[in-house]
């Protein structure tokens, strides 16, 4: 028998909680490489119900170009970079597309950029994949990051500029490898970005998957992680900051298909401005054979101003009683005025006090990333975001 829980404990006024979910088990969700199997969504489907489908419409079509982004890879000395055709047998091994943009991205991309960390290599530097928007023409892109057995390394995918990008990122972590993949969405205001991350984690392998989303008009990222060998571990960390009219959606799926694997999901976001909308959905499936699974997922949202909306839906399905641990937590809160009062009562001006509280909210998570260049960039981006809301505050005060 399967036990399904699905609830969000949204505590703030203006935050939305969704206690009832119509869809069935995540295991029954249709996945396919074939366009015909996954039709254009209406917006009422479980996986699209929070999404602005009108703004994503172009990405549902079959026709995509390839020239809208410039991709530059600066690899670690130990890493190998190739451009391969879509018929390369290494592609498509991480699972099938699970929604319309994922299936159109898969079919539209003609080639793929492959970053390989060879077996037993320990990368001495970060490999950086810079994806820069060049035009707004709809573009499909396919990336594969492959850590061969017992390799270790960090790959940072960095999105900037303005683009309309439909992307697949495949991540393969072979036996005993330790891989960190960071995806930074630091787009310009108008960018539209859908991305299906599909990760396969082998025996005793470890993946740290980090998502950082700041910019863009619509960013919809769907990281899937599947374990293929015992003793695998995935840590999924996400951090986002949405401004007025931005839609940032992160839908995760962790598939515990084999015994004794561990997953930790921690996503935190801040929202400010009218029409800012963040969505977090965390599906975790513990299959009947996945004994000894240890999983925990957490999502927290900090609502800084009125008119911003956060949807948070953790969803844990457990098909075996023999688990190590399984839990989840979700909370959406407004900015705490008592914290503000406490800091101001110690002489700290309001702007600095707010900054301390928001930085504090993200602090733990930033420490967890473990890639110094990304951490610094992140702190700077948080500062820049806060600058916007602070000028709004000082504007009101005057």
């Amino acid at each position, binding site marked *: 028998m399967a036990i399904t829980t699905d609830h969000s404990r949204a505590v703030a006024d203006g935050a939305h909680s969704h206690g009832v979910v119509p869809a069935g088990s995540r295991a029954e969700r249709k996945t396919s490489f074939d366009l015909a199997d996954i039709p254009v969504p209406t917006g009422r489907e479980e996986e699209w119900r929070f999404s602005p489908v009108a703004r994503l419409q172009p990405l549902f079509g079959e026709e995509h170009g390839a020239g809208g982004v410039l991709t530059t890879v600066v690899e670690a000395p130990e890493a190998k970079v190739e451009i391969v055709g879509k018929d390369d047998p290494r592609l498509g091994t991480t699972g099938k597309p699970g929604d319309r943009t994922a299936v159109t991205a898969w079919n539209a991309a003609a080639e793929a950029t492959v970053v390989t960390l060879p077996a037993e290599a320990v990368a001495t530097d970060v490999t950086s994949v810079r994806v820069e928007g060049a035009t707004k023409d709809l573009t499909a892109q396919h990336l594969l990051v492959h850590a061969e057995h017992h390799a270790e390394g960090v790959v940072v995918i960095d999105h900037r500029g303005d683009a309309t990008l439909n992307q697949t990122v495949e991540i393969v972590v072979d036996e005993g490898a330790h891989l960190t993949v960071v995806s930074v969405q630091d787009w310009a205001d108008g960018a539209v970005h859908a991305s299906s991350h599909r990760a396969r984690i082998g025996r005793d392998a470890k993946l740290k998957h980090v998502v950082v989303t700041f910019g863009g008009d619509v960013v919809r990222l769907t990281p899937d992680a599947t374990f293929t060998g015992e003793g695998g571990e995935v840590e999924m960390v996400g951090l986002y900051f949405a401004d007025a009219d931005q839609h940032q959606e992160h839908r995760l799926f962790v598939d515990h298909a084999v015994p004794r694997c561990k997953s930790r999901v921690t996503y935190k976001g801040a929202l400010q401005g009218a029409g800012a909308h963040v969505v977090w959905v965390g599906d975790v499936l513990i299959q009947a054979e996945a004994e000894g699974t240890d999983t925990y997922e957490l999502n927290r949202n900090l609502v800084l101003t009125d008119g911003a909306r956060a949807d948070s839906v953790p969803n844990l399905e457990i098909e075996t009683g023999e688990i190590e641990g399984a839990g989840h937590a979700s909370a959406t809160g407004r900015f705490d005025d008592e*914290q503000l*009062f406490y800091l101001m*009562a110690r002489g700290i001006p309001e702007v600095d006090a707010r900054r301390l509280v928001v930085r504090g909210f993200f602090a733990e998570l930033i420490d967890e990333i473990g890639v110094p260049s990304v951490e610094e960039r992140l702190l700077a981006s948080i500062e820049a975001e806060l600058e916007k809301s602070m000028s709004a505050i000082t504007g009101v005060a005057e």
Partner: protein
Amino acid sequence: MPTLEIRDLHVSVETKEGAKPILRGVDLTINSGETHAIMGPNGSGKSTLASALAGHPKYTVTSGTVTLDGEDLLAMTVDERARAGLFLAMQYPVEVPGVSVANFLRTAKTAIDGEAPALRTWGKEVKGAMENLRIDSTFAERSVNEGFSGGEKKRHEILQMELFKPHFAILDETDSGLDVDALRVVSEGVNRAKSNTDVGVLLITHYTRILRYIKPDFVHVFVDGKIAEEGGPELAEQLEENGYDKYVGTGATMA
């Protein structure tokens, strides 16, 4: 000599049902170096007085004046009041996740003094003050008040009083929740601040036990939103023995 002067202060609290009057004409003058104890039954408005003086947004001053050193305290924002020399040790200090005690203390000190404290001396000063208050050095890296026990929170408040060197400190039930040893350690901290800086102290408490360590110059009985009687230290002893019955009128009994 700096003076905190409260004149005919009326304060309401914002509730869902509208404004509810709590303070009904408080008159009190505190000179620097003086220690005033305020004692009164639960719900009489002691914390309201403390919060209103610090500028908590939930409390509205409906009439009266408060001056600090001749300046209009009520016209200042919360942070301006603190920088003008007012300090409130809260009855329920607030947790601030992700902000370390060390960072918090340095940020506040910088704001209050208008310049960053000298790096070399500040570290030593913080360390010494923490040792005096029996606060373990690991607390410097912990988040402000997060997971602190009741007693640890109170010691952290007094640590700030010692480091920030305010002209006037309001201590709202700093003694509650402290065992005998902690009470002594905290009281010593307050007394150190008194002798080092000539701070004026407004000490809110229910019990005389803290007054055995911190000697008040004046004792005020606070009932139903105002001061019902004033006297010297002997008044505290009387209150301990007889309670507040003689002050609590028919209309002021709690439900």
